[in-house]
């Protein structure tokens, strides 16, 4: 069996995004305004393009893959909304991602549409709960404010308490990183 050759890397980054040099970026990737990518992150647009929105944060050893096109024989765009956090070592192969989601360390998300304000806890695994078969053309969408947690990766709906505080912390975190990252890391010229 011959594997298809890796696509040519084509990165389109907004002038205010911060991308470290020591990352693995493959395929057609668009990075929006104010997004930050730490060293050792991987963004693999092997199945189709990946579009990352504004103000996203991708930490080290996080992996974002768009690989679903190889299964369905079409080039789908993995669009990622604004202000999403991909923490250390998470692996995201979602079909689409909305706004303000948080993927905590080593969370794994695969084959679902993620809406807005979802939290995927540390070490959890999220897979579509509808068994994938021939009629599974409609893939599962996680409702807004879904929180996945615990050893059994249970899903609950978050009531949104403390959301404003989280958002403020995140905004300041990003501001601080914008200041400190370029001092110690080699950045890609965008």
């Amino acid at each position, binding site marked *: 069996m011959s594997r298809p050759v890796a696509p040519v890397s084509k990165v389109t980054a907004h002038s205010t995004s911060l991308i470290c040099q020591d990352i693995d970026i493959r395929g057609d990737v668009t990075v929006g305004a104010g997004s930050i990518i730490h060293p050792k992150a991987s963004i693999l647009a092997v199945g189709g393009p990946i579009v990352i929105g504004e103000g996203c944060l991708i930490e080290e050893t996080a992996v974002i893959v768009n690989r679903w096109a190889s299964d369905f024989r079409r080039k789908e765009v993995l669009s990622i909304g604004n202000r999403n956090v991909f923490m250390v070592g998470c692996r995201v192969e979602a079909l689409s991602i909305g706004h303000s989601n948080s993927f905590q360390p080593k969370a794994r998300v695969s084959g679902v549409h993620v809406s807005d304000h979802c939290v995927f806890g540390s*070490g959890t695994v999220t897979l579509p709960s509808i068994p994938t078969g021939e009629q599974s053309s409609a893939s599962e969408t996680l409702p807004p404010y879904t929180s996945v947690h615990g050893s059994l990766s249970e899903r609950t709906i978050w009531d949104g308490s403390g959301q404003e505080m989280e958002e403020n912390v995140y905004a300041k975190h990003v501001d601080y990183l914008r200041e400190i990252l370029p001092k110690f890391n080699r950045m890609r010229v965008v």
Partner: protein
Amino acid sequence: MGAFDPLVTYEKGTYIETDTGNKVSRKAVITGATNIILGGKSIIQSGAVLRGDLRRYTAGQHVVISMGRYCNISEGVVIRPPGKIYKGSFTFYPVRIGDCVTIGQNSVVEAAQIGLGVEIGKDCIIGKFVIIKDLAVILPETVLPEATVVPPMTVWGGNPGQLLDSLPETHQEMVEAKCKGFYSRFRAA
């Protein structure tokens, strides 16, 4: 620990040996090296990520990661300082790691403090601002949530991490012998 344990060897030149006996893989990612202190005779294996660049807000020299002696940081471990808002501005806080600390493969450590002789298994996630006191054992694949305090001489496991057991007083000697043994067995081929 025993006298007949096999050597753990690496190819010559793939590790940098410092004057104080630290062995640091060339494939480890160490950012902001000026902010990291290694106590000596510590091993940092390939693929480990140490984020010394995420430092405190105020100007001047700051230690971000300080590590004691005979530590063993396995492959793929990420050590990064935790951050929070203090007095209205976001700042990172230093990570203090004691002597004889072993961290297993692919663990993510965002702890504030790790005491001496702590053993962390593989694939663990140690949340932000966790304090692990001396001689604790964290079993493999444990998830410790933010700001957990692990008391000394206890065993923790599960997701979320829970106290499972306590350890005998002889544990300290065992850990020391194990760490020193591993350091002496870890050498170039």
